[in-house]
């Protein structure tokens, strides 16, 4: 077991099995990757209000299994993978996410009509496009970030993003009618 006592060192750079550094690592994981996980959950749920719960469930699972993260550089891919699996399970079970501590703040804007409208339009985009556009808007509006998160070539991300944006424009206009 490695003893960590390196002032100033980025927690994300520390070995994941150094349990004395896991507190910092958790906070760092949350700070760096929560937006991306939320985007993936938003793209893969049937109800927009489930996305936040699934994001939290993802981190509850991840925090409890930090030893499973061998390479901190792959933390985002690892979290996205957990999030996707939880979303699939959730859609299969069609029941709310279940392992979220209860004293955490409740959902942000569960009945905001703009969110409902946006999610309804997102849901009609093809697979792959939903995650791309959600990640783009929720995680810094950078197609390079999306490419790194999804492990997809930048040209593919750009193509999906632009097509998704045009489709979204039509779908939102259609909803307005």
């Amino acid at each position: 077991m490695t003893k960590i006592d390196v002032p100033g060192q980025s927690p994300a750079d520390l070995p994941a099995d150094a349990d004395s550094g896991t507190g910092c690592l958790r906070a760092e994981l949350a700070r760096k990757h929560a937006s991306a996980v939320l985007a993936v959950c938003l793209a893969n749920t049937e109800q927009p209000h489930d996305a936040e719960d699934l994001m939290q469930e993802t981190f509850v699972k991840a925090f409890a299994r930090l030893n499973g993260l061998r390479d901190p550089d792959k933390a985002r891919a690892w979290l996205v993978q957990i999030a996707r699996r939880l979303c699939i399970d959730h859609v299969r079970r069609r029941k709310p996410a279940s392992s979220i501590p209860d004293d955490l703040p409740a959902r942000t804007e569960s009945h905001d009509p703009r969110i409902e409208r946006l999610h309804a339009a997102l849901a009609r985009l093809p697979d792959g496009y939903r995650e791309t556009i959600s990640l783009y808007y929720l995680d810094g509006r950078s197609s390079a970030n999306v490419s790194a998160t999804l492990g997809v070539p930048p040209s593919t991300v750009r193509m999906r993003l632009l097509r998704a944006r045009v489709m979204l424009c039509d779908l939102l206009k259609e909803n307005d009618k």
Partner: protein
Amino acid sequence: MNDSRECQLRREDIAALVLGELDQTAAEQLNRHMNRCDRCRDFREALAAQEEELRSTFDVIARGVGRVEHLAERFDEPLHRPGIRAASPLGRLIGGVKTMRPSRKILAAAAAIALTFTGLASWLMPGRAAPGLAFATVIEQIRVFRPYSCLYTWEYEDKAPYSYRLMRPDLSRRREVRPEGTILVSDLSQQPNRVLTLDPARKSAVEKTLLNTGPRQDPDFLRILANMRDGQAEDLGVKEVDGRPAHGFHRPDKVNDFTIWADPTTGLPIRLELVQPTLSRRLIMTEFEFDVVFDESLFNTSTPQGYTVERVERDGVNPTEQDLTEGLRVIATLCGDRFPDALTEGVIEKTLSDATAGTASSPPQTTPPSEEETRAMRVKARRALRYIEILKSFHKVDDLQYAGNDVALGDAAVPVLWWKPKTSETFRVVYGDLSVRDVAPTDLAPFLNK
């Protein structure tokens, strides 16, 4: 040229242009096409208009990220940390009062037990260093509004500090729990705005309606700090603040001098200090709780049953300098085109009363003003007095003096009213012709204390 198929093919390029994903050469070429193609230009405008709404909607969704940061905090929390609210993670997870759902208590307890041990190990580790925190991270945390409560303390030069508990569910509503036991609920989302003051001890309430107001936002200093554009923040490093390690940043501008102390890990504010030199006051916000789930009933501006109610109506729009000169014109006109010896409610009522009775000295009234005209004149005159009151009590201007006694309305050489704004080298002076000028003290000297 406006071939629809060609335009259809350009739609993705237009999306790239709007998203800033198109290189310069392609953008120039596309712009040339759009100069002659209404269809493509319309599509670009539709996309651009939609883009703003899309971003703001995703920004609202992004607020949910805060929930994971809370989760990380729970996992990090030790059983006891000196100087911090001594609630164990187990207790916090099992005994939370705001959003606890009983069905999840068992899972929460299991998670809490596991987390307590890892969190404790983390905190007991010697030489633990706070991770570096960027000012941008703090701003990112407060850029999007989060429902919060905090202790709000005003400190003044000339009176004792005043503290109350503030609750903000959104940018238009607030609830203040005052030290004397009263509660203020303000709702600026309504038209007109409404403010309810409750005195639970006396079971009395004042329902105030702010006339001439519509839905608007109540100033929020966290947001004002987040939206400051110019200048740099000074990094104050990490120190213990309010019993917790905190990373500080100093961010001044001409009006607001901010110092914010934030949690080194999450970037969430722990303490905000705001100095407003022009108003001679300092605000300290502490004991923050973010992403609070408030009960909507806390922000109801209707009086609860069992209270006696006083209903009042006030002009909800603060008067301006223009209102001051307009009111002075009304008062001087009622006094026969000369300014009265004093500016008081009594003087206004007497001159109005004389005018309606047809006994005003001048100008000669063939017919007295109607009731409606009198009411309008009263409103204007009172707004002038209200402006002077705000100068005195809120802006705390120096050397406010009225010297209009018998000065003729229209006399551009004689000042009738002046004051010296805080931190200003010059006086603001209203002359008999109701012009308002900035005047050096030496130029005003002949009239001072006359």
